[in-house]
């Protein structure tokens, strides 16, 4: 049985930096290529890099395959190769069936033309026949929900209307193989639901779909198989339940690293003008056994050890502890006074141990923010993380 898409050890390189498209560079290049006569795709010249390195995969007819990966991993390059906009430097690919790409659904629009004219223009650009569009016009119109504005030039459309019309045209191309690149997030919630519904319909009708998206939930719900790309290489391939958590882990690790760097630079220290009477010298996370740890399992109890140094006497200080997720959402917050923990006064060095227990946090990167306040909560004394 033939595969719908077959990608055999494909290599693709791009050039970094500015290309000077002028005769001045062309002449020396021409001379050089005449003298050296080396095969164009063999190796990297200066400033070139591999956007895809030996990528192989296949897609069966009627299958939905998701491609995920961080920005710059080569996802869009794959789609561009598949839609024949570019050719690979090495390797081959095979496509069986009519290919349509939902890559940039509004690329074919001309602002001066009306919605109706643009439907025809964009439709033919995507490979439809005029007759076909005649037949489907009403459906396209209904799908877009733009009946009242169809004879208005699209330059007067809102950006939401613009991309809705674009998607509506593209959704009715009726391909055997559909390449989708991050275009499902158009319009309002209602329209997005319609888009996802349309995708499912296409699926049922046996269309092979290749979906590139950063919306992992969508990939998980639509795809049977997921390919994870990283820096131009296939890092993992399998069911969404294997690949997506693996990918999320990579992302979290990177996030953690970045956060750590930032904290080390002291970006998160609250700047206090006055001489502070109390300072936090260290905050450490501990597990139940009292060992220092950086990462914890879900449901693993966590304790904090706070070492402070009060240069002057502070009356009835208040400690606050906040657990903040990497993206800045405060997940837990606790204030010593509210929890009935009253310290009469602190002076000199001291150590405070707080047992947080099982915090029931979802897997992600978190940091803690500890603050010492004086009793009126006016002066934060010092902030630190762990």
């Amino acid at each position, binding site marked *: 049985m033939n595969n719908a898409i077959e990608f055999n050890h494909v290599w693709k390189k*791009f050039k970094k930096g500015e*290309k000077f*498209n*002028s*005769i001045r560079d*062309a002449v020396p290049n021409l001379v050089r290529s005449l003298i050296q006569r080396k095969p164009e795709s063999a190796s990297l010249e200066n400033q070139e890099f591999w956007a895809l390195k030996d990528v192989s995969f296949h897609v069966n007819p009627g299958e939905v395959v998701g491609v995920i990966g961080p920005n710059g991993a080569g996802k869009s390059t794959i789609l*561009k190769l598949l*839609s*024949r*906009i*570019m*050719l690979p430097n090495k390797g081959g690919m095979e496509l069986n069936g009519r*290919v349509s*790409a939902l*890559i*940039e659904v509004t*690329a*074919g629009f*001309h602002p*001066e*033309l009306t919605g109706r*004219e643009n439907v*025809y*223009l964009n439709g*033919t*650009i*995507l*490979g*439809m*026949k*005029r007759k076909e569009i005649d037949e489907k016009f009403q459906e396209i119109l209904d799908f877009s929900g733009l009946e009242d504005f169809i004879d208005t*030039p699209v330059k007067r459309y809102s950006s939401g209307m613009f991309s809705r019309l674009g998607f509506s045209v593209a959704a009715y191309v009726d391909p055997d193989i559909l390449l989708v690149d991050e275009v499902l997030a158009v319009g309002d919630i209602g329209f997005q639901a319609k888009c996802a519904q349309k995708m499912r319909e296409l699926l049922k009708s046996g269309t092979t779909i290749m979906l590139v998206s950063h919306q992992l939930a969508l990939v998980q719900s639509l795809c049977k198989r997921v390919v994870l790309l990283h820096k131009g290489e296939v890092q993992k391939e399998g069911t969404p339940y294997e690949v997506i958590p693996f990918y999320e882990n990579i992302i979290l690790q990177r996030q953690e690293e970045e956060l750590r760097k930032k904290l080390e630079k002291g970006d998160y220290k609250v700047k206090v003008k006055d001489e502070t009477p109390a300072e936090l010298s260290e905050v450490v996370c501990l597990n139940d056994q009292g060992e220092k740890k950086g990462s914890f399992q879900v449901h693993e109890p966590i304790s904090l050890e706070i070492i402070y140094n009060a240069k002057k006497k502070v009356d009835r200080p208040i400690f606050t502890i906040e657990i903040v997720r990497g993206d800045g959402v405060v997940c837990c917050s606790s204030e010593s006074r509210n929890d009935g923990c009253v310290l009469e006064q602190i002076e000199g060095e001291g150590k405070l141990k707080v047992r947080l227990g099982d915090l029931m946090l979802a897997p992600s990167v978190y940091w803690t923010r500890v603050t010492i306040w004086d009793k009126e909560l006016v002066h934060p004394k010092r902030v630190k993380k762990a």
Partner: protein
Amino acid sequence: MFKEIMKYRDLLFMLTFRDIRIRYKQAAMGFLWAIFMPIVAVAAGMIIKVAMARVAGREVEFLGIVSIAVKVLPWSFFISALRFAVQSLIGNANLVTKIFFPRAVLPLAAILACLFDFSIACVVLVVMLTLAKLGVSVYLFFVPLFIIMLFLLVSGMGLLLAAANLFYRDVKYVVEVILTFGIFFTPVLYEAKIFGKWEILLLLNPVGSILESINAAVVMKQMPDLFWLSYAGIMSVVVFFVGMHVFQKQEYKFAENI
């Protein structure tokens, strides 16, 4: 390649339609410009002709003026078609980098849109010539052939230069300069034979020989010079196929190099 273009002929048609539509969109006179422009062009040619005759101290010949009118329109078709074709790939960069279709439809659509303007201009010219009582001859049947030749010539050049311009933007400046001054080196406002033995140089330019052939058939009501006619025909076909071939060979590099 022709097969591919045939497959995408609806696209070619839509792009042509688009280019025509947007040219006259949001212009108060709208479509009237397509009629008005050739009249202006012809009038300008006539004024020059009259002025030249005055300076030379000769009588203003009726046929001389008519021949200017007949030659100015194909010439302006040629330059505008070439100009639009050269820009067509870069002007549609977002399509070239994002969607697959035979790229040749872009310059071809630009040329077809100009051909449409040219045919309107021709209608205007026919009305004017009928009013001027020029009269007809059998040689008029040659005219469609000349227009096909001109179309093939400008298509070949357009494809070639559009591709070249995509890689090296210098091309459009060179083309612009040549088109601006081309009118002096092409027998548009004068006749090739006034140069005597240098006539050959002017007719080697296929546009020149096509224009002279049109002039012979329409204005002089005589058989065009067969040698130069076949020369122009062969040149047009050769240029067309060379342009097509080069374009096709370079096509796969467009998206990355635009």
